[in-house]
């Protein structure tokens, strides 16, 4: 294949990565923006989305599209419920102290990973895509499902943006983000907002996991890389800024696709992690965030 089409393929792959990453990172960014806590177990919510999607599709007979639809509806909701429980039982009791929360979510990470290992097993299992559609471009064939993923992610993010800016619930979340005590003084139940936000963040990660699982198999360790990448995206885009997260996801997803085609993935990851560290050290507000 000539260079041009090769690059196009790399970009298309990168776009898929960016779409999934944007979903997962949006969840992380939301949680940090509103609650000011870092959830290290975020990658495990993503993994649980994928694993539960496998479980649902295995249990529901019939056409793959139906099973997949069920997975899309059920898995994120279950994971969101789990996250809400974690918030109520653990995070709330810690009063959302930043350092204690990080330690607690590290513990949560281990617990969830272990749960997946024990109940689901160490193997990677595939899930059938809801539809098989091969798009034939002049230079190569491409999976129609992957394009669907990009479209779906875009729609969900659009809906998220509309929710945050146009609905009352979104307004309440943004108000709590700006000033927790004033929000409380206005009668906003901050605890409930936090639980909802945490659940929503987890649900977004889980949805990303569901969408990716027909492309990439479900495995109990699959949360590690998306966690690191989500961190990178959120920090470079600016903690708490949804727009920055989106743009950073695009940049990182696309460049990851391109760089991985030309350099080893390891080198790409090294550069990415160092980049994040340097951004935090020298430009803590990221590219778009107000304050870190």
């Amino acid at each position, binding site marked *: 294949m000539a260079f041009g089409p090769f690059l196009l393929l790399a970009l298309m792959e990168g776009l898929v990565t960016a779409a999934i990453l944007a979903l997962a990172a949006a969840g992380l960014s939301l949680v940090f923006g509103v609650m000011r806590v870092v959830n290290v177990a975020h990658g495990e919510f993503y993994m649980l989305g994928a694993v539960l999607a496998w479980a649902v599709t295995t249990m529901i007979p019939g056409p793959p599209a139906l099973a997949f639809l069920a997975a899309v509806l059920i898995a994120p909701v279950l994971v969101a419920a789990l996250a809400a429980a974690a918030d109520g039982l653990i995070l709330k009791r810690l009063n959302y102290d930043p350092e204690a929360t990080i*330690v607690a979510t590290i*513990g949560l990470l*281990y617990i969830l990973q272990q749960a997946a290992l024990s109940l689901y097993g160490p193997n990677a299992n595939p899930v059938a895509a809801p539809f098989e559609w091969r798009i034939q471009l002049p230079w190569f064939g491409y999976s129609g499902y992957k394009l669907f993923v990009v479209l779906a992610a875009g729609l969900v993010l659009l809906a998220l943006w509309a929710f945050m800016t146009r609905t009352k619930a979104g307004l309440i979340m943004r108000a709590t983000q700006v000033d927790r005590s004033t929000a409380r003084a206005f009668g906003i139940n901050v605890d409930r907002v936090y639980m909802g936000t945490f659940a929503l963040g987890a649900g977004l990660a889980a949805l990303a996991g569901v969408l990716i699982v027909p492309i990439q198999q479900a495995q109990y360790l699959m949360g590690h890389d998306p966690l690191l990448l989500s961190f990178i995206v959120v920090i470079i885009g600016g903690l708490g800024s949804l727009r920055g997260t989106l743009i950073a996801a695009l940049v990182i997803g696309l460049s990851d696709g391109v760089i991985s085609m030309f350099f080893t993935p390891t080198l790409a990851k090294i550069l990415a992690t160092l980049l994040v*560290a340097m951004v*935090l*050290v020298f430009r*803590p507000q990221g590219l778009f965030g107000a304050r870190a």
Partner: protein
Amino acid sequence: MRVWVLHLGLIAVLFTAQYWLSPYLATNLARIMVLTVFAMGYNLAFGYTGLLSLGHALLLAAGMYAAGLPAQLWGWTAGPAFIAGIAGGGLVAAALGLLALRTAGVSFMIVTLMFAQAGFLTLLYFAPITGGDDGFAVAATSRTLLGFDLSADTPRFLAALVIFAVGLLASLALVRSPFGRTMVAMRENEERSRMLGYNPFTVKLAALTISGLYAGAAGAAYALLFGYVGASFATIQYSILPMLYVLLGGAGTTLGPFLGALLMFALIEAATGLTTAHQFIVGAALVALVLFAPKGILGTIRERWLRWLP
């Protein structure tokens, strides 16, 4: 006085342990003592100075490779290799601090995590030299010190004990010195410390560097005593373990790291007989500790009953 009796007494008891423990348990104890040195270093940075680092695995690996590579490539013996390991840990810690200490709180945690991750990936990238994930065994010739073979049970145990004892007593002296007071002051009220004439950056950098010397010693000891160097020691797990030991035993206490390491080891050993779900125990322990006993065992004891415990 009683503080010194307590610490020297512990060392004495551990010395005798080689006689009444089985060889298997004694070797495990040696391992625990080495990991405790790592945890003691972490305690100095986190428990006393308030620096919650998630990148200490980088420092452990630095010590391990600073000792292991010269042994592997140039045939260094244990003595020089060990010193190189300590220096490696300290230097990497200082370099890390120069950058990471420009941030604080959550950002500091993430920055240290990122640098450690980059370090791990770099070790993988240079796998031909470092052995990558598989690592390499340290040659027997490099594991001799003053004629003693460190791969044999008794010399190994004694070496681990000596390193542990020096680390413990040094940390005791440090936390009771004026600088020890300064470290705590920085944790308790940084603004006030600044307005008393202390430079927060230099104090924290010093604390982190000392922490790195300990980590380097632990990494080097692990390489030389147990004969194995590998990139797996640079993974996030080894940044979390010292934090777990310290939280369990009591952050900001001199004996907390040892108690935490000992208990976690025992807990996992006991659990291995019942289940393979080690990670669950670690995770549940972290959550339980941070929810119900943030001061850890010795920290709670100190607060409630024994105020003189350092």
